[in-house]
């Protein structure tokens, strides 16, 4: 065999199966969704010809009943929930990342495990645990009722608040780990320099510490915001009719009252937001030459 043929054969044998598998079972289904989004919906809930953009009008809220804000609200709610989850995990992750990074070296691995192990339990179990905690009559719900935040005999679940809690709980480790990686590499001489310049602890953090943790922060934002936006389990279990997120809406259109083109159009919208966010943050990370974010 000549070298070129050998190289081609080696390439085909090594990457061939993987590329074929992912093309066939991931790209092709994705492409199919793209096509479905431009087809018409038959009365029986099956996509048919001709090609049309009707599904996208429906996403924007137009139907034979006129315009309704429902779908736009769902998209907005999903973005908002992703935003809440991101900010809350950032606020919780910074102190925790510092606690671990400043702990004696032999204890760090153990502390990291304390963060990681809960995320190894099944996602369904994790969401279920919050159903248990936020149900009517539990101490937390009772507290909310006492404070006048809830009507008598109501629970904190199902609600948008419960969805937020579930998302924060689910994705917190994904914020802690990249942040920890940044904090662990922190150059403390820069922090000391900031301490010389500023008396105020907050300004020391803002000028001496924060800039150094931005790479980890960006990676964490990607890891939390994107799956929160696309969440399915948490809003399904912890949310009610008024806290439906985009993932639930898509799934609903495929099962209970089938309208595949509409659902496929929603899927494209979700992908669009996902990739826009991804590209945005990757670009920011690249500009900062951020190590952790380059892993993505």
């Amino acid at each position, binding site marked *: 065999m000549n070298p070129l043929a050998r*190289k081609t054969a*080696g390439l085909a*044998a*090594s*990457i061939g*199966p*993987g*590329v074929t*598998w*992912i*093309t066939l*079972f*991931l790209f092709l*289904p*994705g492409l*199919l*969704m793209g096509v*479905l989004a431009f087809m018409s919906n038959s009365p029986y809930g099956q996509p048919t010809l001709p090609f049309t953009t009707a599904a996208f009008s429906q996403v924007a809220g137009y139907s034979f009943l006129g315009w309704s804000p429902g779908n736009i609200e769902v998209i907005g709610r999903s973005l908002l929930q992703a935003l809440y989850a991101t900010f809350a995990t950032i606020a*919780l992750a*910074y*102190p*925790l990342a*510092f*606690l671990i990074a400043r702990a004696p070296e032999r204890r760090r*691995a*153990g502390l990291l*495990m*304390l963060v990681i*192990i*809960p995320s*190894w*339990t*099944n*996602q*369904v*179990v994790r969401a279920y*645990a919050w*159903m*248990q*905690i936020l149900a009517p009559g539990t*101490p937390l719900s009772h507290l909310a009722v006492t404070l006048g935040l809830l009507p008598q005999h109501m629970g904190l679940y199902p609600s948008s608040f419960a969805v937020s809690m579930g998302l924060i*709980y689910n994705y*917190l480790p994904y914020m802690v780990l990249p942040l920890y990686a940044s904090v662990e590499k922190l150059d403390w001489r820069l922090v000391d320099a900031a301490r010389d310049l500023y008396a*105020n*602890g*907050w300004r020391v953090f803002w000028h001496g510490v924060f800039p150094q943790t931005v790479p980890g922060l960006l990676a964490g934002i990607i890891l939390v915001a994107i799956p929160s*936006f*696309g969440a399915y389990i948490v809003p399904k*279990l912890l949310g009610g009719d008024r806290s439906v997120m985009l*993932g639930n809406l*898509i*799934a609903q259109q495929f099962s209970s009252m089938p309208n*595949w083109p509409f*659902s*496929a159009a929603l*899927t494209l919208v*979700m*992908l669009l937001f996902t990739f826009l966010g*991804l590209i945005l943050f990757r670009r920011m990370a690249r500009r900062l030459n951020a190590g952790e974010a380059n892993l*993505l």
Partner: protein
Amino acid sequence: MKRTSLVIRISQSVAIATLAFLWLPLFVVVAFSFEPEAAAVHLTGFTFAWYERVWEQGGMLHALYLSVELGLGSAILGTVIGALLAVGLHRYRGRGFAVLALIVYLPIVMPDVIYGISQMVFFNYLHQLIGWPRAGLVTMGIAHVSFQIPYVALVVYARLVGLDRNLVHAAADLYASPWKSVYAFWLPVLKPALIAGFLLAFTLSLDDFVISFFTSGPGSVTLPIYIWGTIARHGVTPETNAIASLMIGAVLLVALGQTFIRARRNGHLLTDTA
């Protein structure tokens, strides 16, 4: 100085509270699985009754069996294909690399719902066209392998990047033909990464719910789907607490086992892990 130490103390308190936040829900589930009162909001006693009930119903064991079958089957295939992909990507880094990198990264960032639903639709059409595959363990397996491939590839690729590029040349230089170098060089050198990749693939398969849910069929109720079903039908129940506690317990056992193994290897805490 006093001000700084106050900031640090507040920060430490928040951090410890956050750790508690991560563990509290799991403790609550486990604690209430031993609570004799069916619709309790406070703990009143201790019982194994709910575990006995789960055992008698039997559905969980079958679901567990299906999960392990699916996990092992898909992880073996996913590890082989993913490892080959990593070796190819590493060896033939060239102009096409960006396209190939997309194949690795896209499945990782794609939202689970889209992943699962598009595959469900695709398998549905495929079944109409050629009569295969019927929704069940096969479609779930295909889906699982497709998301395992990139993760395994990343783990193996990371190991390859860490290797001296001359090693494979050294093997050839020392009379190893391409075939001999597979068992004398590649397999032993990549062994830690292959094991880590396999374990990761297996864990991903066991842990996945969304993609499994959409690609499953009537006869393929794996453990996450089983517990989802009981929650959907009955909400919070003591039986569900017991099942969830068993799943939490399994995770803790694995974590303890891993910590034990690491402690015995003493000093090499972070080497072979992904």
